[in-house]
């Protein structure tokens, strides 16, 4: 999955075999949640995500644990 700055995504599932999965669920990546890719760091990685009303910095590789689909409508939680 390629994430682009300024786009909204909706979580389909979190791959629980990925080492970062537990942390990601705790930080709020659960089914159906909509998140915004707010910014990319000056060197292209990590990303700054807006999720559940707060900001989270995350490497693209860690975000690979999340299966998400692009989402055009702004969800209630993002």
């Amino acid at each position: 999955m390629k994430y682009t700055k300024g786009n909204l995504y909706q979580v389909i599932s979190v791959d629980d075999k990925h080492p970062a999965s537990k942390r990601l669920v705790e930080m709020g990546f659960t089914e159906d949640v909509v998140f915004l890719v707010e910014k990319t760091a000056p060197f292209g990685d990590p990303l700054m995500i807006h999720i559940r009303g707060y900001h989270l910095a995350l490497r693209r590789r860690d975000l690979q644990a999340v299966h998400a689909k692009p989402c055009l409508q702004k969800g209630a939680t993002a």
Partner: protein
Amino acid sequence: MKTIALLGNPNSGKTSLFNVLTGGRQHVGNWPGVTVEKKEGFVMLGHERFHLMDLPGLYSLEPDSPEQKLAGDYLLKEKPALILNIVDASNLERNLYLTLQLRELNMPMIVVLNMMDEVEKQSIHIDAEQLSKMLDIPVYAISATKKHGLRELTHAMHKHMDMPTPKTFSLACGSCSLCKKGEQRYRLVEHMVSACQHTEISQQKQSRTTWLDKILLNRVLALPIFLLIMYAIFTLTFEIGSGLVSGFLDGFLNITLRDGLSSWLTFLAAPAWLISLLCDGVIAGVGTILLFLPQIALLFFFLSLLEDSGYMARAAFMMDKIFSVFGLSGSSFIPLMMGFGCTVPAVMACRILGNERDRKLTILLAPFMSCSARLPVYALFAGVFFKQNQGLIVFSLYLLGIVVALLSALILSKTVLKSKGSGFVMEIPPYRLPQLRNMLLHTWEKVKGFVIRAGTVLLIASMVVWFLQSFSTSLIMVTNGNESILAKLGGIIAPIFAPLGFGTWQASTALLTGVAAKEMIVSTLAVVSGAGSASPVMMVSQMFSPLTSYVFMAFSLLYMPCLSTIVTMRKELGSRKWTLFGLGYSFVVAWVISFIIYQAGLLLKL
């Protein structure tokens, strides 16, 4: 005595509340993980004293870093009489996740909605009563920094202390291991938030954080701004600091105090050894260090500004990619940056690193970051040899420390500490206007610590150095330092430093005593010069050349960390082997790099 435990997400204001309740002065910052150790205080409720425990912040009770484990373990083992769960009300959804986990423990508990002032500013309404009904425990709304709602809270804490344990509360699906509890909890949280939190539809104006980030985290501008901020902090610290020093304090100390005391004591016909001890030992050793208080105070003030505003976490975000090249993650940036202040808290701050290997590596690198105690050394040498471009020379030393740290990270992660691909997941807090009181308090605590150290460890050490350099091996007071005990001792280790260009007994003993505390390097030089010539400045200018003075500064920066750091490293690494490795490694690195600089300098005929 009954115990109340403060628990909540990182950066939700636990320490602010702790300070307000106990009248304490614990350090508060604006980045997740300021509190790395549990802190204890007392709080009076009615006429009864209670133990209040401030625990490191955690996102979940299934933690994955040592400081989060501390909080979880504490709760399950010590069973406090009351849990005070601090919730950042401006970030309700994520915070309530931990609240639910805590609630599932069925222990006496109060939820404290903190930062209500910020919430109100954002036109968000939170129905505390409704939340209380849904969680079936009391909920109170406060603002710890504005001191709102505290009376009601303390009253409630007293009242609920002896309440029976709340009704059992568990997630609908019970405890089967198959279903996803995390997902379940968030579903419940979403339900609660939609029932308790209402945002007014009125057109919200863009928040401070949003527009500040548009500039400070702008793809193009972010790095130049970051470098500019670092450079500004550095020059302000050094220029203002040294301006104050060279002008006023130096004159006061060396002319008014030292010469005045000396002639007064001579007038009183005090014995020569006493005059020498006070003037050449105490004033020279301790006083020279106190000259650098303005710089140290400014440095800590600026670091505190970075922490409290929320910029530190963003710097970590920006640096992550660069750090990943060297086998580190952006999370290491915060402890390393703190290392510019003092290595001891820097080593302790490494606990925010979830990954054991990252933590170990960052602890080993922290001593290479040039701490404030090295400033006196630079100021003395650069002041003598590089008057014209003092700032540039000192800046190059800071840079040298950073480069050595990064290259060491690369070398160590390819050899003894192989990377297992650590991640970087870090909350970025909103920008907050730093509270002047908090910053001044933090600066004052550091300056106080520094003065206390000067008055105790450095005072005694300076007196010992004075004794060793004023007496010969047959305990006769000598006028020529070259016949002293110290000269003999220094002479033994001097050959180690000869290839680096400063194989004198004075330089060797200064480096030796510098392990006790880095400022001792300057103290020792001041004491050693005291008996013979006039000032450390004169002795240094005779004994060093511009090249060897630079090599000496580089060596002072890189070789073994000070004693307090070594003790902290031993504790945090939990291994004597790794501590010894760190010490040996830094000594070898310092020697090799100094050797290269010296030989290169000779070749270039500097």
